[in-house]
């Protein structure tokens, strides 16, 4: 069995699966049970400054988007940082860390953008013996209205400034958690690096309204007839998160910076994909909130089996492996030609590929009177929509045409050489081939 032992910034954990800073990690009871269930680490739910704790709404805090069979695909929340007393949290963190020395315990922090505030809380956190801190610069609701959370994460200068304070007043690793509610995630990541951050974690939740109640005409979750945007997470946000992760992994100013991946991770495969894009570990929240702590068992067995199958003996073997293959559109090989292929043995004749292609794409699938669906190579641009809408996995595939064959759509011979847009004759700015 592959070794899942994780070393992220020198922080050891038995596996790379951490619970993200969120309701599941709000207290000792949960965290102990999470560790017993098999989670490698936790990021304790965000602590605020000493004093009266924040208050939460006493109505619904979550809203959801569903797929078939009411499978939860997206969740949003309007819960704030911990509403428990700072010192209660600190005592619990200290006890848990002492009892679980081999598990990772990270403390998420959000205090006002003032040096004194950070200077006050950091020694208290240091004293817990926790393995590091994560700066919550991402929370998009409530706290951002008070100049914290995403309000900081949206200003690179603030990120750099606060990170620097943390490195000054705290001795262990500092992880900066980024908000996706910005235009270019590389800017805040670079700011974190300039401030001395040991790593970034992303994404925090996305501004969202999950639904509108058409009886009360209020967004949901609704509190006494009014709603507000919340933070969106769950499987639906995974593609957005992975894109942002890849941008940081690829950018010159941030490449090589350790990343903790967050955003809709639900299965071992999701985790492996984030790690392939450069994440040293991953953090999970919605999947645990949907199914309970037990899901980590599947993540552990799945990742381990896959690593065995691929011959990876440690996580480092595959972390970042997909980064070199993530590129800009202009570098994609325009000489590559594929065609859809429908496996008639697997086809259940639902005709969704036909409807999608005929109504919305390239009219490249034929339908016979007895419901045999076939690809018309002369029209197929290999867009993949048929693959995406087919309910049977693997029934429709994209097959590359061999070099030297003729694409019946264009009449052109498939060239063996790689050629991209930068040298394409249709590109007004093409660089002439030497």
């Amino acid at each position, binding site marked *: 069995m592959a070794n899942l032992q994780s070393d992220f910034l020198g922080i050891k954990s038995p596996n790379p699966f951490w619970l993200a800073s969120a309701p599941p990690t709000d207290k000792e009871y949960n965290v102990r049970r999470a560790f017993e269930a098999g989670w490698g680490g936790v990021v304790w739910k965000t602590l605020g400054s000493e004093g009266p704790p924040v208050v939460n709404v006493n109505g619904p805090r979550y809203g959801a988007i569903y797929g078939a*069979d009411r499978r939860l695909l997206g969740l949003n929340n309007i819960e704030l940082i911990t509403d428990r007393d700072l010192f209660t949290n600190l005592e619990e963190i200290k006890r848990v860390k002492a009892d679980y020395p081999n598990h990772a315990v990270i403390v998420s922090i959000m205090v006002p953008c003032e040096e004194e505030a950070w200077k006050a809380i950091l020694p208290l956190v240091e004293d817990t013996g926790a393995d590091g801190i994560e700066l919550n610069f991402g929370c998009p609701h409530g706290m951002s209205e008070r100049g914290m959370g995403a309000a900081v994460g949206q200003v690179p200068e603030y990120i750099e400034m606060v990170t620097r304070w943390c490195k000054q007043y705290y001795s262990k690793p500092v992880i900066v958690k980024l908000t996706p509610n910005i235009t270019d995630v590389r800017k805040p990541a670079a700011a974190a690096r300039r401030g001395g951050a040991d790593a970034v974690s992303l994404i925090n939740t996305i501004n969202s309204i999950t639904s509108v109640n058409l009886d009360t005409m209020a967004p949901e979750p609704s509190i006494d007839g009014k709603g507000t945007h919340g933070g969106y997470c769950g499987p639906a946000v995974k593609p957005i998160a992975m894109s942002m992760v890849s941008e940081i992994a690829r950018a010159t100013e941030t490449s090589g910076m350790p990343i903790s991946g967050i955003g809709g991770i639900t299965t071992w495969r999701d985790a492996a994909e984030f790690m392939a894009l450069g994440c040293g570990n991953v953090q999970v929240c919605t999947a645990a909130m949907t199914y309970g702590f037990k899901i980590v068992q599947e993540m552990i067995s799945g990742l381990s089996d896959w690593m065995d199958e691929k011959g990876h003996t440690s996580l480092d073997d595959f972390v970042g492996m997909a980064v070199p293959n993530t590129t800009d559109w202009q570098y994609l090989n325009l000489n590559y030609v594929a065609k859809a292929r429908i496996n008639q043995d697997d086809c*259940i004749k639902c*005709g969704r590929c036909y409807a999608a292609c005929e109504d919305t794409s390239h009219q490249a699938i034929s339908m016979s009177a007895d419901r045999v669906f076939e690809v018309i190579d002369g029209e197929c641009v290999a867009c993949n929509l048929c693959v995406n809408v087919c309910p049977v996995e693997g029934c429709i595939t994209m097959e590359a045409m061999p070099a030297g064959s003729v694409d019946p759509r264009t009449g052109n011979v498939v060239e063996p050489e790689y050629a991209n847009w930068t040298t394409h004759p249709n590109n007004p700015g093409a660089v002439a081939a030497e």
Partner: protein
Amino acid sequence: MSQNSFTPGVVAHRLPADQYSDQFSDLHPPLNDHEALVAADRCYFCHDAPCITACPTDIDIPLFIRQITTGTPDAAAKTILSQNIMGGMCARVCPTEDLCEQACVREAAEGKPVLIGQLQRYATDHLQDQGVHPFERAEATGKTVAIVGAGPAGLSCAHRLAMMGHVVTVYDARAKSGGLNEYGIATYKTTNGYAQDEVDWLLAIGGITVEHGKSLGADMSIADLSARNDAVFLAMGLGGVNALGLEGAHKDGVLDAVDFISDLRQASDVANLPVGRDVVVIGGGMTAVDAAVQAKLLGALNVTLAYRRGRERMNASVYEQDLAASKGVRIMTHAVPVGLHGNGAVREIEFEYVDDAMTGTGQTVRLQADQVLTAIGQTLQGDDLPRLDGRKIAVDGTGRTSLSGVWAGGDCATGGDDLTVTAVAEGRDAAMDIHTTLMS
């Protein structure tokens, strides 16, 4: 009561009194909201869906299921009922396993089709339970149409004609409307008086008068009806039953399965219905299965369904055959009845085994039988009918007969299987052709 399953002869009250309501409750209890949403989520919304093609009334099944999914079951019901005004009954009695659900791509994919029939019932019940009739009549045309038979074909035709603005009179020989929906379907397929409720709901469109106790021949002729109306639609079904053609067929204990089924449906308390200890049903269709299963449900000790060919030739679907087997009915094949024995009342029935070509093997077998139910087909009755094709009224694709101004549909006419849903489709299509003819 001292009777039980072991009591010889044909007696009532074989079961404890409190057992009957369970025995004859809904075969498929209605889906609740949660079950309906889970079932509806499995529909793939296929292109040009095979289930629609398989439905004799061409209900847009993917659309109505999507309407259930999106929380609009009444819209789903309208989608169903606009194609099939008896969609509620069809949801209960259609052999969906041979129609829409057999064609469902998830049957091909996983051997488990979307529960189309039960979803259809969910939607139509939702609308009808509110007493809502969603169709309105068009402006009056001044035309009148006479319909013979208030079964599925006749009522379907009547509703469509009334909707188009015509005035319709339906004549039916029996005391209640509904035809086989009321008299000919197993009790556990349509409980709580649904057949009458559906008729009442259907008639709520207005413009339809039903006259009971009026049969063709005895009370009126096609010529009379044609003379008094702008069009006539014949939908009287098959009023006769095929005879067994055996000596002793009049012995006590021998009766037509259709009468047995009808008595069950009309009984105020099924416990009062007598049933044999050893029941033999002759036939291989739905009527035979309905009779055999219900004989068992009434407490018969042994029920044998005897069919002259192999199981694969039975008109009853595999699902129905399995249902019978699961209720304890023994299915005996390749057996042709050759004799009824007994003094006054039947005691034994004798069969000869035949091969697939129906050639006798010379081997015979006798079964103990204190009740024999025959379900070997129904026949068209009446004189002065339009031209027949075989034993049914010959019609073209829109129900036109050889007589000008006379249409026919349902079991009395050629075309399609003898199913409720087919009758509804034929009634509807004839109505559209009648309308076009009268308005041109």
